[in-house]
């Protein structure tokens, strides 16, 4: 008796079709080997929200009864392979439904594999990924995250490359031959088959030891019971807030202590405090009230409540004053204003280098996803 479970962690809407292609192909491929499988989305993530972390699963078993045993639990408790199709989610995920932060490898079983699409190296990723008490493997598929829209799918071969990598790291699931057959059966062209095979050949993985990784305790909270919840589906408002960092001047709202949205973010704003003209637009337009007003009238993004929508960048009238930067560049949610205050030259240098890098990379971002398809596909083509 053997059952293999795979989860695909993806960004809602932007990667929905990608995740679906992967889990469905797994089941098709397993069928080629006479196995039984099912592919499903986590219902709590539906209807999906733009960019919100969501999950789809593929479960494959030797016979229908064994499959049913595994389907009797609503959601897999552990998986053989976790596939993360956007490396910024290595910092942990929170769906839109108030769960607290779940480490990306929470369901990855002992000895299982975490596959991440990324252009970072293993050390940089492990810095973000929460440590586990058991060993597992990390496999990196070199790629930029493949983002699409609700109605369009960017066929940049990420789906088949993942499938090739999966056949390599989890041979007990399906063979590469079956995977190829499944790809062909779906009417996909030979170029996609070649991408899968090439990915299979190139995929390697690296063991991650117990205790290795991000040491932070992911934030969590106890859900209230029916006797402790307020009646009438009422959520009490929180205090209004006060001066910046508890002082007399500036303003800082009190924020919900259990509902944080930063795992939604694949980019974050970085602020140039020297060129800011204090026009208030970022503060006013931010849908998550994430800007704190400093005593000197500047605006500091609170990065625990920033969902990365990019509205601040869009409304800022000053060039490069608020710039959205790839979330992968950061390892904490520290205050930029405090960094700037500590050492203005250092901050400026750091900020400038990030902005320059961002301009070269041009990482497409779901919220302002414009153009770039052709360039991106060219970049990942491995011929």
């Amino acid at each position: 008796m053997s059952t293999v479970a795979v989860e695909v962690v993806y960004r809602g809407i932007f990667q929905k079709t990608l995740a679906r292609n992967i889990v469905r192909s797994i089941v098709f491929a397993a069928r080629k080997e006479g196995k039984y499988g099912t592919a499903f989305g986590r219902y709590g993530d539906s209807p999906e929200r733009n960019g919100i972390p969501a999950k789809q699963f593929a479960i494959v078993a030797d016979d229908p009864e064994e499959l049913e045993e595994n389907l009797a639990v609503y959601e897999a408790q552990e998986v053989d392979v976790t596939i993360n199709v956007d490396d910024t989610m290595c910092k942990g995920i929170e769906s839109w439904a108030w769960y607290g932060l779940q480490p990306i490898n929470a369901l990855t079983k002992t000895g299982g594999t975490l596959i991440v699409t990324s252009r970072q190296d293993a050390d940089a990723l492990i810095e973000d990924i929460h440590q586990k008490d058991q060993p597992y493997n990390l496999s990196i598929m070199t790629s930029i995250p493949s983002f699409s829209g609700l109605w369009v799918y960017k066929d940049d071969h990420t789906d088949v490359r993942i499938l090739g990598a999966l056949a390599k790291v989890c041979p007990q699931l399906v063979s590469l031959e079956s995977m190829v057959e499944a790809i062909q059966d779906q009417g996909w062209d030979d170029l996609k088959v070649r991408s899968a095979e090439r990915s299979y050949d190139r995929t390697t993985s690296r063991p991650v030891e117990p205790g290795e990784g991000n040491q932070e305790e992911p934030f969590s909270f106890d859900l209230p019971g029916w006797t402790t919840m307020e009646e009438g589906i009422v959520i009490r408002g929180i205090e209004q807030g006060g001066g910046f960092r508890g002082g007399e001047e500036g303003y800082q709202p009190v924020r919900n202590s259990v509902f944080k949205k930063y795992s939604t973010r694949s980019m974050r704003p970085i602020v140039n405090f020297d060129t800011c003209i204090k026009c208030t637009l970022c503060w006013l337009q931010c849908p998550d009230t994430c800007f704190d007003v400093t005593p000197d009238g500047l605006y500091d993004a609170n990065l625990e409540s920033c969902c990365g929508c990019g509205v601040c960048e869009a409304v800022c009238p000053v060039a490069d004053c608020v710039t959205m930067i790839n979330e992968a560049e950061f390892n904490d949610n520290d205050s930029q204003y405090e960094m700037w205050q500590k050492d203005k030259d250092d901050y400026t240098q750091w900020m400038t280098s990030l902005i320059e890098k961002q301009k070269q990379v041009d990482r497409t971002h779901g919220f302002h996803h414009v153009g770039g398809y052709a360039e991106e596909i060219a970049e990942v083509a491995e011929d």
Partner: protein
Amino acid sequence: MTTVEEQLFMTEKEELISGSEAVAIACALADVDVITAYPIRPYDTVMQYVSQLKANGAFDCDFIVAESEHSQFEIVKHASSVGARTFCGSSGVGWFYAFEAIAVTAGLRLPVVAMVGNRALDDPGAFGVEHNDALAVRDLGWMLYWVATAQEALDMALMAWRIAEDPRAFLPMALSCDGSFLTHSQAIVNVPTQEQVNKFLPGYERGQLQLHPDNPITVAPQVNEDWLMEIRRQSNEAMSRTPGVIKEVYEEFKQVFGRGDPSPFLEEYMMDDDPDIVLMGMGTLALPVRVAIRRMREQGKKVGFVRLKFFRPFATEEVQEALGGAKAVAVIDRDYSFGSPSSGGVLFNEVRAALYPLDNRPHVVNFIAGLGGREVRVRDVEDMVDITQKAIDTGKVELECNWIGVRE
């Protein structure tokens, strides 16, 4: 000519009014803040009278003619959340059109009071009474009361706000009034004074749940499977508290106004000698049933009648006590439930379920009658009793659900 004193309810008086007018007068006496209207027969008669009372200066309220039933119920739902006493209503498919708002009103624990002028669920344009419209909300957290007389309409409307707005309940309540038989038939009604009503009915205080700038709250954020079951559990608890609230309010009403039955849940007729056969039904069909019972009693038949007043909350224990001693119970449904157990009516299956835990269960026979406003005649009731007697005589119920007064 109405005097100012009469107009402002300064003196007690008798009026010849319909059930709809009685509810309208209750709206004025209860000083309702927000009333929303949209026309559909037969409930719309209540709005006719409400607007008249407002125009005549009997009371003041925001009287909003909405562009649909859906908006009607959305408006009172929101008004209730900010602490306004509300009244609304509809009939038949109009009530169904408002269903999205109606369902949520109960979930949000908003004490909206509505009148349902019971009407067939159309097609083809039928507007006679059937109870299926109001019954559709039976599982959602609405209290449901079936009115039999115009006097009861006025009295229970006044109690409705008091019960619904009790913080232990905070649940909406619908007064079901049979189309035509109640909404359009006039009877002598004792109209209390404003002073009496003020003594009985305090203002609506939503307390910590009131949506107000000084009490910043979010009402109904989107939740998922991790939260919803707890919310349903709370609503269940609130509904299970309502019988206690109803009893208290009913006793107080009797003290202030000097009228009322022994029980708020049941009206019992000729039940003192533990009759063999007990008829059970809701609403205005009580009238022909009582007349039929008097005739049958003259013939020596031991027959009684229990009118169920509150369908929700369903008074399980009271029903068990009232019916448990009978040899057979005949449940009359002015509704249908196609494909239900025994293809019976809604009330029938509820009553039968309530009696199931008893050691000695009476036979339960169902009669579907009076659909679409068809008359339930005295001799129809006599037929029902004959069929039920046969179950007692033979020891078994031959046909559990019998359609009465239908052309073959």
